């Protein structure tokens, strides 16, 4: 019998706000333990929560970007359970009226080749709600210590429908979701800092069956690759259990990305009764049309929409646009440089940006924002090449100096005397004749029909021209002489 996997993801994303969800103390990462606290965070006797409106704004914005319906009223509930990382022993969350309902995440599956766009799909969302993060426990031999710096940080929970069927789809979902959140400025989604965390619900069923199989929840998947590996591992594990004639037990399992092994944490019998009820300390907040339309106006273009536009508007190929949309600032940089370079030059801008600037940035271990080459300078460089003033290989030298100094290409060319090749056809023809004469073996091979043998002459020509010859012109001259 053929089986299919059914996967739903619960993703927690920390909302990037200055202060915490229900009090004024700062939110942050990497501070001394228990320094980002106040009476509210520590749940001292008598304190009350006050909603951080910026966090609600961010979640509504996220919902609008993902096409969710925004609830007319934001209502708060208490989710109750005892654990030392939860100062009140209840978490303020949203139970039966999440702020966002429905919507979906567009994903792209791997294509048949690297330079071919893969299939796009929309993974439907169940809901998005806002809640507060908990603290962090550190376990030692005989006792545990708790750090409440993270406690009370705004946290959104994004729940997908059980609508994915492979580890690759889950991987693509998380990649796309993360890009969307980063684009919207909603979160930095740094998984190492716990800003994005993922739990996966996985079941298998015979192909054609519509009911869901018994699900297993996979927790502690702390990188997007571990999510993919963990899900692939769990699907295999479940299929193996079924093949042995066993049945899947509903449980929560912990997947260790380092060892690639999962183990059971708890079974369903130990499931919590969270005793949800509306938080009487917080009034429901009405979300009206004006509020929503203000936030809608702040929503950026989504990454895949931008990619489609770059491909059609600027004729930039898929592989380059795939890179350009990885980072909103990179795409903005591209559009700025393309605009300055003028019509028909966007593709060259894209190539230089992706192949050269990003490489230099990687080597220098810096980032786009601090790179000295700004869009205007890149546009100028592209225009110098396209107009024939600068040859491609000379341009690389110029670009390296631009990257190092931040000077404009014109200034560098002027300073270094790096103008385009002299177009003295007679001189070039002489260099070509010399090169052919100097390599009878290659000449014989070319005459015998080996097309690539012509390249053997180009090196000496370029050497003679001190690199300033136009390769196209060299090629044309050689072919004329060899004909």
């Amino acid at each position, binding site marked *: 019998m053929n089986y299919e996997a059914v996967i739903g993801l619960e993703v927690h994303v920390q909302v990037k706000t200055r202060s915490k969800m229900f009090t004024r103390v700062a939110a942050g990462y990497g501070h001394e333990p228990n320094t980002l606290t106040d009476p509210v965070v520590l749940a001292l*006797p*008598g304190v*009350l929560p006050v909603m951080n409106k910026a966090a609600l704004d961010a979640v509504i914005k996220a919902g609008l970007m993902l096409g969710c319906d925004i609830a007319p009223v934001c209502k708060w509930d208490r989710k109750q359970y005892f654990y030392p990382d939860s100062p*009140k022993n209840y978490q303020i969350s949203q139970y039966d009226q999440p702020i966002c309902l429905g919507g979906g995440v567009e994903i792209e599956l791997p294509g048949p080749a690297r330079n071919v766009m893969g299939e796009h799909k929309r993974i439907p969302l169940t809901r998005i709600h806002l809640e507060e993060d908990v603290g962090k426990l550190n376990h030692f031999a005989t006792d545990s210590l708790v750090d409440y710096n993270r406690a009370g940080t705004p946290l959104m929970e994004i729940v997908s429908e059980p609508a994915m069927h492979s580890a690759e789809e889950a991987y693509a979902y998380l990649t796309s979701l993360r890009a969307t959140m980063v684009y919207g400025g909603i979160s930095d989604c740094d998984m190492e800092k716990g800003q994005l965390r993922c739990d996966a619900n996985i079941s298998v069923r015979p192909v054609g069956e519509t009911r869901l199989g018994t699900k297993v929840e996979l927790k502690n998947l702390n990188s997007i690759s571990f999510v993919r590996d963990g899900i692939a591992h769990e699907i295999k594990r479940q299929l193996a259990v079924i093949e042995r004639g066993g049945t899947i037990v509903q449980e929560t399992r912990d997947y260790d990305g380092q060892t690639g092994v999962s183990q059971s944490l708890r079974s369903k019998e130990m499931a919590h009764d969270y005793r949800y009820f509306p938080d009487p300390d917080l009034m429901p907040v009405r979300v009206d049309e004006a509020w929503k339309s203000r936030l809608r106006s702040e929503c950026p273009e989504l990454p895949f929409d931008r990619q489609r536009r770059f491909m059609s508007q600027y004729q930039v190929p898929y592989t380059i646009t795939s890179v350009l949309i990885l980072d909103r600032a990179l795409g903005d940089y591209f559009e700025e440089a393309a605009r300055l370079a003028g019509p028909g030059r966007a593709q060259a801008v894209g190539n230089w940006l992706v192949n050269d600037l990003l490489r230099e940035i990687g080597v220098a271990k810096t980032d786009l924002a601090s790179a000295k080459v700004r869009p205007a300078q890149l546009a100028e460089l592209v225009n110098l090449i396209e107009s024939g003033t600068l040859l491609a290989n000379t341009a690389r030298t110029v670009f390296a100096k631009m990257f190092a100094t931040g000077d404009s290409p014109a200034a560098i060319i002027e300073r270094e005397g790096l103008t385009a090749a002299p177009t003295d056809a007679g001189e070039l023809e002489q260099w070509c004749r010399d090169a052919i004469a100097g390599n009878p073996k290659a000449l014989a091979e070319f005459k015998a029909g080996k097309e690539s043998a012509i390249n053997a002459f180009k090196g000496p020509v370029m050497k003679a021209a001190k690199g300033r010859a136009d390769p196209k012109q060299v090629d044309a001259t050689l072919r004329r002489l060899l004909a």
Partner: protein
Amino acid sequence: MASALHYQTIAGLSAQLAAGRLSSVELTRAVLARTEAVEGRIRAFNSRDEADALKQAADSDARRAAGRSRGPLEGIPVGLKDVIAVTDQPLTASSKMLANFISPYDATVTAKLKQAGAVLWGRLNLDEFAMGSSTENSAFGPTRNPWDLTRVPGGSSGGSAAALAAGTALATLGSDTGGSIRQPAALCGVVGLKPSYGLVSRYGLIAFASSLDQIGPFTRTVEDAAIMLGAIAGHDPLDSTSYRTDVPDYRTALAGKRGPWRIGIPKEYFGEGLDPEVGAAVEKAIAFYRSQNCEIKEVSLPHTQYCLDTYYIIATAEASSNLARFDGIRYGHRAADVTDVEDLYSRSRAEGFGAEVKRRIILGTYVLSSGYYDAYYLRAQKVRTLIRQDFLNAYQEVDALLTPTSPVPAFKLGEKSDPLAMYLCDIYTIGVNLAGLPAVSVPCGFTTGGLPIGLQLIGQPFRETELLAIARDYEQGHDWHTRVPSL
């Protein structure tokens, strides 16, 4: 009016302080001396900081000397129920759980009283976590009624009522979730005001039931209640349930409000269980208002019979959640030699909480548990809406409602050992909390045994001025409020 300083009114003392005939230090010393003399018999205080009170009084005198008096409460010693946070002072809720807890922050009402120049004096006893009607549920022992030391002062704000009646404070703050200000005020013969829900910030009040709790004053007179309310009322950005409304100068506004009033008598509040002497005193109060040309009208609050059940579902549900934070992890009582975190929780809470608190946590946990929520909590909220609507309907015809505050006068310590019998003490007061209304208890007579009787007036939402004016009219026609116990 008794002439001793400790039995005078804020209004009177404030005038003497302003005229320079009295200093805050003198006044505070008089209150400390009175406390020294009678507190051993009353046990109204959980803790007292004499040095701190005298320092505040000296600061107040210095402000006044510099022409920077902060108003009518400047230099007046005010006691706080031990559920209201004061920086660097104990905050125990009369529970073993918080026996050693010192608050690092001020409640909003505390900050406002400091801003008004009051001398904060003492932490007053209560039923543990404000759960009870006699102050017998205190982990530190019961408070006694100054009018009869064998009897309870009522509760849960029994310490706040008894201290005022005993002259060991000149005004006090309590909190009222189901009658916890009004019932002890009635039993101790003082004025007790529960403001509209949302008028006074709850920030810094240890929560019992968030949707019902409200802080309010105990005073000797209605005018003093207006002064205290003026100091503590107002919108607070730290309390999301705080109501955005302009707070008038209640004392001035009060002087301008005169009857005659339209007063409703809810027939459901005069039934079985009402002590005949209490009933007779309240009837006399009705007759008084009639004699003042007020329109007296019988009204019906048909859902009154559901108040007690509704209250004990909502209050316990919220309490079970609010008290979850007392777990021995970050502060408060922690059991010794625990084996793991479960053991830490269960033993710390088993040792730290008293029987009544545990009873309500268990009840509240039950009504919120999966499968029972709809039948209990959700239904109780719907009934609550009906109860509120009953009151609002009545206010179509009348300005205020008049009822007994408590069905019985002060009872003996240990007399009500059955929790249900104790719950019935609040039968006339809890509807007000469920409906979020303001209500005041004023002294309206004494039993033949010499125990105070209280009259409850229930007002319309956020119309405290009118409510206090109606109470003031009664007070001015009587002298019950001038009587003091012989201690």
